[in-house]
């Protein structure tokens, strides 16, 4: 199997790119998830001007292609006098995307907590913030965790877009390797295998977590 030897010889060239892809994904989840929760809380909250602002952030984040957001920040931030590395721009842009989608998942998680739980919280004296904090939110987060984990996997795939702003992640390493070797088909096939296998493994973990979490619901 000659192509296998070829693939193995390419791995050292691609693996730093994979590292960057995973780091990028990790940072986007680290920033994007809390951001999404914050957006969800604002959207469910009572302050109208904040709600409108959050709505714009979410609707643009979900409505515009992630690629367009990347370009928007990549070209837009320097025009506004902010100069960041491509990597940092990628993190900000994809965190925006992550937060926008996550906020919707958190909101449906909140909506899925049965009304009886709110009533039981109130009749147990847990009203307002403490009822929300101790009774509603933990259940909502549990309900949202499986779709959030799937979102995480999607974000890993989306991180491939950072290629267009020259972040040295997997796609860009693959493209570079292709243009040296002219073995585009084989290089991108290997890239697909890398993306695919990591995604499949991650999805398997998501399913496992899903089963564990649903035990107490």
């Amino acid at each position: 199997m000659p192509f296998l030897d070829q693939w193995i010889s390419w791995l050292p060239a691609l693996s730093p790119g994979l590292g960057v892809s995973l780091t990028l994904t990790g940072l986007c989840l680290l920033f994007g998830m809390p951001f999404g929760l914050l957006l969800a809380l604002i959207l469910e909250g009572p302050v109208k001007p904040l709600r409108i602002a959050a709505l714009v952030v979410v609707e643009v984040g979900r409505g515009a292609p992630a690629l367009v957001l990347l370009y928007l920040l990549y070209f837009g931030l320097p025009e506004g006098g902010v100069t960041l590395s491509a990597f940092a721009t990628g993190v900000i842009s994809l965190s925006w995307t992550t937060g926008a989608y996550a906020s919707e998942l958190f909101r449906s998680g909140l909506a899925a907590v049965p009304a009886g739980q709110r009533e039981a919280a109130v009749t147990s004296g847990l009203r307002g913030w403490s009822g929300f904090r101790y009774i509603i939110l933990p259940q909502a987060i549990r309900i949202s965790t499986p779709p959030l984990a799937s979102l995480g996997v999607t974000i890993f795939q989306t991180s491939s877009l950072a290629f267009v702003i020259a972040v040295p992640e997997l796609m860009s390493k693959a493209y570079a390797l292709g243009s040296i070797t002219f073995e585009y088909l084989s290089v991108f096939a290997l890239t697909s295998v890398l993306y695919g296998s990591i995604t499949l493994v991650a999805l398997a973990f998501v399913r496992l977590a899903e089963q564990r979490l649903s035990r107490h619901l």
Partner: protein
Amino acid sequence: MEIATERAASPPTVGGVKVLGLHKSYGKHAVLHDVNLDMAEGEVVSIIGPSGAGKSTFLRCLNYLEVPTAGTITIGDTTVDAGARRPDRASLDRLRRVTGMVFQNFNLFPHLTVLENITLPQMKVLGRSREEANAVADSLLNRVGLAAKSDQHPSRLSGGQQQRIAIARALALSPKVMLFDEPTSALDPELGLEVLAVMRDLADEGMTMIVVTHEMHFARDVSDRVMVMADGRVLELGPSEQVMTAPTHERTKKFLRAVLDR
């Protein structure tokens, strides 16, 4: 509701319940018409009546899970007047503090263990320390016969066990009045019996209780008085023996016949 406010000025005996001129409507649809109830401390009143009579709505108005349209509610020394537009938070909090509620479908907190279900409200609402809260929880769990289950999650328990935990959770906040909304309706008959036994003990210990129920035996044997509701009104309210065996109202007779024939 000026008259009601005036009458409410005579408070019930400490720990008792006094409801005057309670009205509730959803938009134009009136669900409760002028419901009155005066209970002494330690009294047990069962509420029976056909489906849609407004039993749950009445019970839920008592702790403001539903906001009544008019009327006053006095529990212990806390009075809330629905005529006053928006009751202040403090009196609502007090009203909920002195009432404990048990739901038809338990509503235990699924993400907390049995013990945490009982301790968390104590710590957050009453500011008890974890040790104090645990001690209270332990003694209550013993009382409902479920000490062995304290580290389990509710989903692992039978319905009857869950409902007994729900009762313990409510009792942990030392309410003056316990409200039960069909606590056994979601349970198989045997499991219902273990819950009814706990409730009977509670009544014997002198807890003031209002129980919406379809258990006619409980209504007759445990409660002091029975209140019959239909179409949002109180048809009759009297000593349980009398209401259950010799009701004055034709509707009550029909209802009881229908229920007892089943």
